[in-house]
């Protein structure tokens, strides 16, 4: 395993030089390596352990667990899809070679995180992933540099809290190894220490997966990263955070550790805190996503909300909730990756990411549209896509535990997700095509095939979820979250909840039957006459032939409703308190203080320098004597 990671890291540098010669060859090699890795993760036997070095007298090791396998597999799916996507997409970028290098580093870093057995190894690979992704974000765009800084700072806030936690643990137990820590924590009498440690470790996850107080970087980083890389950011890198959150509540078995801290329906207090943060993220993510005009920022906020779902699900430590949360990792990774790739395709062709400047692209980019459509069906949690299964599980857990307020927030987020995913659908793909895009073409197959493959995986897992549920069941067994029954009952084709079950195959068949019946009804009756929505583009002086109140309209872009799509709803929270604004105010305050000090101490005049020199000497002498 370690050789694999090291080889990846070394080859990423080699690939830089290959890509310098021909970036296309480099990216093809990347894609092949990625595909190989997907097969590779299946071959590694579970429980393999490799020692990689020593730190403070502790061995650093890698371990291949069920959780690591699941997360690696999901990550690789996303990364490989993006790698294939990039083979063509990179020609719109200025630094394809650097992209090829860093994306391979990100892969290595993330795999390392999922393989890490101890906190320090995790930290090292974490930083590799974060720093290499940070270097991709500003690629070629000056205005994105600030985004990279925000991303790094937010990440660092989390990471240093994580490190602090890790060293607190070390100073008390003298170990970094996670299984050891879990054992020690369970027996530790000091509650405050345990709470502090768990929350500090979780802080890295909170920062990375964009949970409430540290969610602000998502919008900036996702919005400004290179378009295809946003798919990796949202689909894969954010999941590192979910992994750490899972570590902090499941690998360190919170049910056992905080057995005396259970407040209500068997959920420990720190988990409550995390669930509350998750719920806040759901609300903030949903509300903010609904009002975004930039389509990438919209999905960035939706990642905040979905990160909240994952945290809520895992945080309940309920068999169903945990499985739902972990499955949601998979669903959201695939859906967000496809959505960002679809947007990257749109930007690739139209060079804008503002919803208000687009429209009617379905006439020109139908395949991208299909990919986007199925991705949002999954994201909104509508059967027969797999997104529904995880939401169903999370609801089951919440209702079973009687957590009504969290459940209401989860429902709000779920219905809110209809609103925000529909907005780009209506504003970008449907409606009227603006004149300036009348010569836009569909993206080449190498760009749409990865999207369709991911969509197909999500679809198949929605109809027959048992292959993906099995590793999750294994994981749950590892963490000892006792199942009272088998959730994924593949013999009876059932997914079982705490009471009541459903059969994804029947649901899918019903849907298909309904669709076929509808289609038969449709064909029975007279054939429709086509209304050519593109007529104003083709023919000068032809009015738009749809309902226009009887008047004549010739300008398609004026007859396309995409600005302030939910105006009535957006108006309700126009003047909302904003965490982001508060952070900005703080940043501005510190900046001003710095400026002030800078201005005070470093006046650009010789006399000032002389004065301060004299003062310094005086102080030194005063201290000396």
């Amino acid at each position, binding site marked *: 395993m370690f050789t694999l990671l090291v080889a990846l890291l070394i080859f990423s540098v080699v690939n830089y030089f290959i890509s310098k010669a021909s970036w296309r060859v480099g990216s093809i090699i990347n894609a092949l390596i990625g595909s190989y890795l997907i097969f590779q993760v299946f071959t590694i036997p579970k429980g393999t352990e490799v020692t990689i070095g020593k730190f403070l007298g502790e061995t650093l090791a890698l371990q291949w667990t069920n959780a690591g396998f699941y997360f690696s597999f999901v990550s690789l799916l996303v990364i490989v899809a993006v790698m294939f996507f990039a083979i063509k997409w990179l020609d719109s970028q200025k630094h394809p070679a650097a992209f090829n290098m860093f994306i391979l580093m990100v892969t290595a870093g993330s795999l390392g995180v999922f393989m890490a057995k101890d906190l320090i190894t995790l930290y090292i690979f974490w930083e590799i992933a974060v720093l290499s992704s940070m270097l991709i974000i500003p690629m070629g765009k000056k205005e994105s540099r600030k985004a990279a800084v925000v991303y790094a700072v937010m990440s660092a806030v989390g990471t240093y809290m994580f490190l602090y936690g890790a060293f607190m643990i070390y100073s008390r137990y003298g170990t970094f190894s996670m299984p050891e820590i879990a054992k020690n924590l369970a027996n530790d009498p000091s509650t405050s220490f345990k709470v502090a440690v768990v929350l500090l470790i979780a802080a890295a996850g909170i920062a990375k997966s964009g949970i409430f107080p540290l969610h602000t970087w998502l919008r900036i980083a996702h919005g400004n990263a290179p378009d295809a890389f946003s798919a990796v950011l949202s689909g894969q890198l954010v999941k590192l955070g979910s992994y750490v959150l899972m570590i902090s509540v499941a690998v360190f078995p919170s049910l056992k550790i905080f057995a005396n801290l259970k407040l209500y329906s068997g959920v420990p207090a720190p988990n409550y805190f995390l669930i509350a943060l998750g719920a806040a993220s759901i609300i903030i993510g949903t509300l903010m996503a609904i009002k975004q005009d930039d389509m990438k920022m919209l999905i960035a906020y939706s990642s905040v909300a979905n990160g909240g779902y994952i945290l809520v699900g895992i945080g309940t430590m309920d068999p169903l909730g945990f499985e739902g949360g972990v499955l949601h990792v998979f669903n959201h990774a695939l859906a967000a990756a496809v959505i960002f790739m679809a947007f990257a395709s749109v930007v690739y062709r139209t060079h804008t990411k503002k919803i208000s400047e687009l429209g009617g692209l379905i006439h020109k980019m139908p395949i991208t549209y299909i990919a986007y459509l199925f991705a949002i069906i999954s994201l909104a949690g509508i059967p027969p896509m797999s997104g529904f299964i995880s939401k169903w599980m999370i609801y089951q857990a919440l209702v079973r535990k009687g957590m009504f307020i969290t459940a209401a927030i989860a429902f709000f987020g779920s219905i809110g997700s209809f609103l925000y995913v529909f907005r780009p659908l209506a504003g970008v793909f449907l409606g009227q095509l603006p004149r300036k895009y009348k010569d836009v073409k569909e993206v080449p197959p190498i760009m749409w095939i990865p999207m369709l493959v991911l969509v197909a995986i999500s679809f198949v897992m929605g109809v027959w979820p048992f292959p993906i549920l099995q590793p999750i069941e294994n994981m749950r067994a590892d963490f000892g979250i006792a199942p009272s029954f088998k959730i994924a009952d593949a013999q009876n084709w059932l997914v079982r909840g705490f009471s009541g079950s459903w059969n994804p195959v029947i649901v899918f068949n019903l849907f298909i039957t309904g669709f076929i019946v509808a289609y038969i009804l449709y064909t029975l009756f007279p054939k429709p006459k086509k209304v050519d929505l593109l007529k104003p583009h083709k023919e000068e*002086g*032809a*009015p738009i*032939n*749809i*309902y226009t109140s*009887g*008047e*004549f*309209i*010739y*300008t398609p872009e004026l007859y396309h409703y995409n600005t302030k799509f939910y105006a009535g709803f957006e108006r309700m929270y126009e003047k909302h308190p904003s965490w982001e604004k508060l952070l900005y105010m703080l940043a501005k305050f510190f900046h001003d203080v710095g400026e002030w000090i800078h201005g005070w101490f470093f006046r650009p005049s010789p006399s000032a320098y002389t004065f301060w020199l004299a003062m310094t000497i005086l102080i030194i002498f005063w201290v000396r004597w």
Partner: protein
Amino acid sequence: MKERTMWEQIADSLRSRSLWMLHYCTGCGAMELPPTMTARFDMERFGVAPMATPRQADIMLITGYLNTKTLRRVIYTYEQMADPKYVIGFGSCTINGGIYFDSYSTINRLDYYIPVDVYIAGCMPRPEAILEAFNYLMEKIRKGEADGWKRYKENYEWYKQNQIRSLGEVYVHDEFHE
């Protein structure tokens, strides 16, 4: 006239009993429509109901005089309606210009521009007359004789030429429509 198939006969009989009219008051005859729709005369009894847009409507009521500005919209709207579609001309203005026969802005006969299935005489026609006209139209549809939409297709060139003669152009471009 061609023989209708059984399906067409059934369809025609259904169409006759569910007439959705376009909610468009082109002239003053629309003033007697609310009484016809409401409690006193209640034309929903016969399945006649107002509809919002031309796409859904079956009948278009030309409720009185049409000036050239309205006629353009009427033609445009008529072409947006789904086949089969029927037109009822209200009042003498649609028949021969009525009291506005010498006006510089109103047309004098409607069937010169779009085919009309039923005319109602009078200015303005009473609700009873409107109901009678609806019943007559229903009967015509049932018998398959209300074929204005077919005539419009067959004589499209003729109608277009008449429209251009009176209107100049149908799809007007002016500062409102750019």
